[in-house]
């Protein structure tokens, strides 16, 4: 039997692209030979991917496969870590976000992010957390802020639970509510793409179910890329799934196809729990 590494190598050689040629979607985010790492340590070894617009794409793979680094490259957060390196291209609507003329701050307003652990601003109220992205970027109009707060909190399924205590501290909410507050905070700046880095890994099953339902509803307005190490979650929420292994994109396909009829042996072995 071949080792995992040999399989990766042989499969990368056998298929020139991990992605199926026929595409029935509009490409929102695309990466071309995207490489990233820390110091001398390469984490992403050349990712070619096309992420569909208004769909949920799951990024799945065992720990250390580069899935978090991948999405952190898409909003240029990766480069802020000391020693981090990025090469290659990442395109948003066909425009390279790593072009020298592009302001990373402007990119981050178009590509929002929700993190693994809920991280509301502890010194701010629920209301101020929700509109932080607007208020700190100079929006002063109370009416605009009020509407943004209500819209984003409704959008994150949190409004009914917090509408009577908007001035309470964001840290006073439960873990699941905090995570939905973080989603509201990301939605308030009206991004086009929403990156989610294992948003449910710190939550209990009930809170997880609520967030998954929320994510499913968000896709009509947003392009969602969700990192997960939970295969069930990927199969529940994602339209498309990307399987990463050792810094490479092994397979990208419609979720049902990838789970039921994977093209690559490595994907199949991961899905059936033979490793990972």
């Amino acid at each position: 039997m071949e080792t995992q590494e040999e399989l990766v190598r042989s499969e990368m050689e056998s298929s020139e692209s991990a992605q199926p040629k026929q595409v029935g979607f509009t490409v929102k985010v695309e990466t071309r030979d995207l490489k990233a790492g820390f110091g001398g340590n390469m984490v992403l070894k050349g990712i070619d991917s096309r992420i569909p617009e208004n769909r949920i794409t799951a990024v799945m793979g065992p720990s250390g496969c580069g899935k978090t680094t991948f999405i952190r490259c898409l909003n240029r957060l990766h480069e802020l870590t000391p020693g981090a390196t990025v090469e290659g291209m990442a395109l948003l609507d066909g425009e390279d976000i790593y072009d020298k003329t592009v302001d990373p701050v402007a990119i981050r307003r178009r590509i929002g992010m929700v993190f693994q652990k809920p991280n509301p601003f502890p010194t701010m109220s629920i209301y101020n957390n929700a509109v932080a992205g607007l208020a700190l970027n100079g929006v002063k109009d109370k009416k605009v802020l009020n509407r943004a707060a209500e819209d984003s909190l409704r959008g994150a399924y949190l409004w009914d639970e917090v509408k009577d205590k908007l001035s309470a501290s964001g840290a006073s909410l439960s873990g699941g509510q905090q995570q939905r507050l973080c989603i509201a905070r990301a939605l308030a700046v009206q991004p086009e793409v929403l990156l989610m880095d294992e948003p449910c890994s710190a939550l209990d099953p009930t809170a997880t179910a609520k967030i998954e339902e929320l994510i499913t509803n968000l896709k009509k307005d947003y392009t969602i890329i969700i990192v997960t190490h939970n295969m069930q979650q990927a199969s529940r929420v994602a339209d498309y799934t990307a399987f990463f292994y050792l810094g490479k994109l092994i397979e990208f396909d419609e979720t049902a196809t990838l789970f039921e009829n994977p093209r690559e042996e490595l994907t199949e072995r991961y899905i059936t729990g033979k490793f990972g």
Partner: protein
Amino acid sequence: MENGDLGKGTYRRRHLFDRIMTGFIFLAVFVAVLPLVLIVADVVIQGGAELSLDFFTKLPTPVGIAGGGIANAIQGSAILVGLASLIAVPIGVGAGIYFSEWPESRLSAISSFMNDVLAEFPSITIGIFVYIIIVLPTRTFSAVAGAVALSIIMIPIVARTTEESLKIVPVSLREASLALGIPRWKTVLRIVISTGRSGLVTGVLLAIARATGETAPLLFTAFGSGYFFNSLWSPIAALPLTIYTYGTSPYSDWIAKAWGAALVLVGFMLILNLGVKLLIGRRYAGVRAEI
């Protein structure tokens, strides 16, 4: 059989050893705390008799005349430390932010090291330095010179505590802010500082406590005075200077006043330190819930 009393002998030995070491630790704590208790008790007993309303509100009287107070010294210390804070807090906080948020810059590393050196500097040399750069050119001891000397003592303390309290603000909060498209400088000002603000206040309080008790840098700069404040460019009284002058004098009523002034100073320190303790207790309660 040996297994029958398995561990009993070693258990007793370990237990005895534990008792002896615990005893040593209690002894060490006792020896460490004893001087503090003795000093505070001495100051309270000797100085307590001096305290009266007049002591806080009246000017000192000449030797041999009963009554009078140290109001000028209290006022002078407040003015000196207040002025010094106005200089030291913006500079110290600014430097602390720079050390914490831009650690990758070479200038940050070098000045952070120099800040540490400055914090350990003998305070008398700071007094002489200010004497040379301010007192000599202006040909007068002054409140300004005293405040500048105290501010040089405060800056490294404020800078270091600012740096430390900003460094423990979780990376996840900075990233949350940056990911919203908030620029780095605004992230630092509005998210990082606001999360670490009780740490900043703690640093300022500690620096004030330190500056209020400093005597050496004031000897060559503020000089001391028997009257209330009258101008920024004339000598000014201060509590430590009063204690120094009165305490080393041969007159028993002045020595008694020195004890009273010492009690006022020690009381102020205790209040400030209690404030710091309260702040640290509440520090980052919100952040902790989030981590």
